[in-house]
């Protein structure tokens, strides 16, 4: 397992919001199914003493940790306060923060990620679906019924596209060890390279799918950094240059980071690249 397992206790910030409350119940439903601990505390300043989806709510992460044993946080708070929430989790000594929130100003993300690093806290996201180790732990918003337990690692900059590809893998009988949505923003905490390093030390994982997008060069950096067998899919081949297609991450910047040249660079490293999501299972089969 990477990042967490059944024994990981989770704190959710922004717990009393609509999304926070909804996903606490889904995460804990999964935890009950697999016999894990799941979310042990919610945090919403000023709402301490309440209960949400059967979980006690505290005013701060520090207060929550006085009564509950947890090592990870999931952030659902609105964009303007999400950077603060990431730093609060890092300062409280948690080793992992999964930031689901989208539209966080990029300077806030950069500061929060730098601050978390000083506190030896890994940040997944922001603007991500979190992670799921089938049969072990869910820390985020991924739908669990598409996944199955197995030996394929998945790392993705996308949210829903990840579910699509996990579904394809499951239908092809290729179960997953851990699925990590690293986020669609230009600046994110854990990159392909960081997650691949964890997969290298993971007994469960035999091959990894990289799901990338137009923009930046994180996919190539990751591919270059690892000896693990990997296959990739890059979204945005049909995206016209200089057009914004959704996330801030998915902008083509003056030719660099466009999907076709990214695919060319990956192929030059002998990484098989799928032209359709449905081609991924066949590419993975060849690797294992």
């Amino acid at each position, binding site marked *: 397992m990477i990042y967490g397992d059944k024994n990981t206790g989770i704190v959710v910030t922004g717990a009393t919001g609509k*999304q926070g409350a909804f996903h606490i119940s889904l995460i804990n439903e999964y935890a009950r199914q697999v016999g894990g601990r799941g979310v042990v505390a919610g945090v919403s300043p000023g709402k301490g003493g309440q209960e949400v989806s059967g979980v006690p709510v505290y005013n701060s992460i520090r207060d929550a940790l006085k009564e509950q044993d947890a090592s990870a946080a999931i952030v659902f708070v609105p964009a303007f306060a999400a950077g603060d929430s990431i730093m609060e989790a890092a300062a409280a000594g948690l080793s992992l923060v999964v930031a689901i929130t989208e539209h966080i100003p*990029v300077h806030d993300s950069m500061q929060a990620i*730098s601050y978390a690093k000083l506190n030896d806290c890994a940040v997944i996201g922001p603007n991500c679906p979190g992670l799921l180790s089938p049969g072990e732990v869910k820390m985020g918003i991924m739908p669990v019924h598409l996944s199955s337990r197995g030996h394929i690692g998945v790392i993705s900059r996308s949210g*829903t596209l990840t579910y699509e590809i996990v579904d394809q893998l499951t239908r092809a009988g290729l179960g997953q060890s851990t699925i990590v949505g690293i986020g669609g923003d230009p600046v994110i905490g854990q990159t392909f390279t960081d997650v691949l390093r964890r997969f290298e030390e993971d007994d469960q994982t035999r091959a990894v799918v990289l799901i990338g997008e137009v923009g*930046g060069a994180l996919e190539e950096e990751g591919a270059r950094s690892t000896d693990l067998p990997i296959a990739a899919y890059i979204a945005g081949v049909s995206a*016209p240059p200089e057009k914004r297609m*959704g996330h801030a991450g998915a902008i083509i910047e003056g030719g660099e980071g466009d999907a076709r040249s990214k695919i060319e660079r990956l192929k030059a490293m002998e990484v098989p690249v799928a032209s359709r999501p449905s081609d991924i299972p066949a590419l993975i089969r060849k690797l294992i």
Partner: protein
Amino acid sequence: MKLLEYEAKAILAEHGIPVPRGSVIRSPEELAGRIGDLPPGFVLKAQVDVGGRGKAGGILMADRTNGEKIAGELFKTTIKGIPVREILVEERLAITHEYYASIAVDRSSKQALILFTESGGVDIETLAREKPDAIRKASLPLLLNRIPPFMLRNLLGSAPKELGPVIQNLYAVFLARDALLAEINPLVTTPGGPFAADAKLIIDDNALNRQGITQNRDLTERERAAEQHGFSYVELAGTIGVIGNGAGLTMATLDLIEYYHGKAANFLDVGGGADQERVMHAVRLVASDPTVKVIVVNLLGGITRCDDVARGIISAGIAQPVIVRLAGTNEEEGRKILDGRGYRMLDSMEEAVRAAVEAVQ
């Protein structure tokens, strides 16, 4: 959002960076009223958001006798398809040397990346390709509120020390304005000191609210509606309307349409947590484009609940055929709602896209 040159320069000036004396005119007649305040020779710079503006004829020299005529001609032109509505009239500088300085968000290091070169006034991408050693770089974590002096010394090398405060102030602009890019090109030296001869400032769209900036782009009616609903929407040239949730899945849907030799009419990402009303507005918006012959809705539930989506599609009540692919949270409920109401529900995105491409052939 990219600011216009004069907007960027006003912000630089607020932070103590010297900029040329100038003012903005919106008609040639305005120039006549200010001619007395101008130096004998000046520059007319079209305020349009395009690269290579100078080469495209957007920057013209003028003097007091021909200024109004030249401004009149510039107002009648379009620069790379963009009409000229505003002109920045600026003093001509006695330039001794041109430099380049920029501070940008760097995805790889997750820090601010400062670039400086003594070969300014050129296209930085070209220089990076041809003479990478001419560009000096420094990475700065945003936890620091000033550039450390050693870093400035390393950046400047043998360049004049008077440029140091300009770069320091540019970092102050970068921080204060939530910039993705703050660039001065060229940064020039003159007998009267350094000046930002041209400036580019791109503000993080996710920070426009706290920066008190409202976007005033030229939008089509549909683009404006999309913005109001918070959809990411881009119009394209084809006939297949596309609605997805999540940028990656929506892009992959467009890519698959291209793979099957179809042409998408648009990209519309409803975003996370789309409820019934948002989906209804999305379907209506895409259907209101007369070139759209068929709509593919490709939604995988995460935060999005499929039952909400199904109700949204039904309540849109549009004329074009809708091909639906739904999976994820509350998937079964979503299917039940759509069942037997004449919507084509397919199991995979592959099938949905192929059905849409076939429908328009």
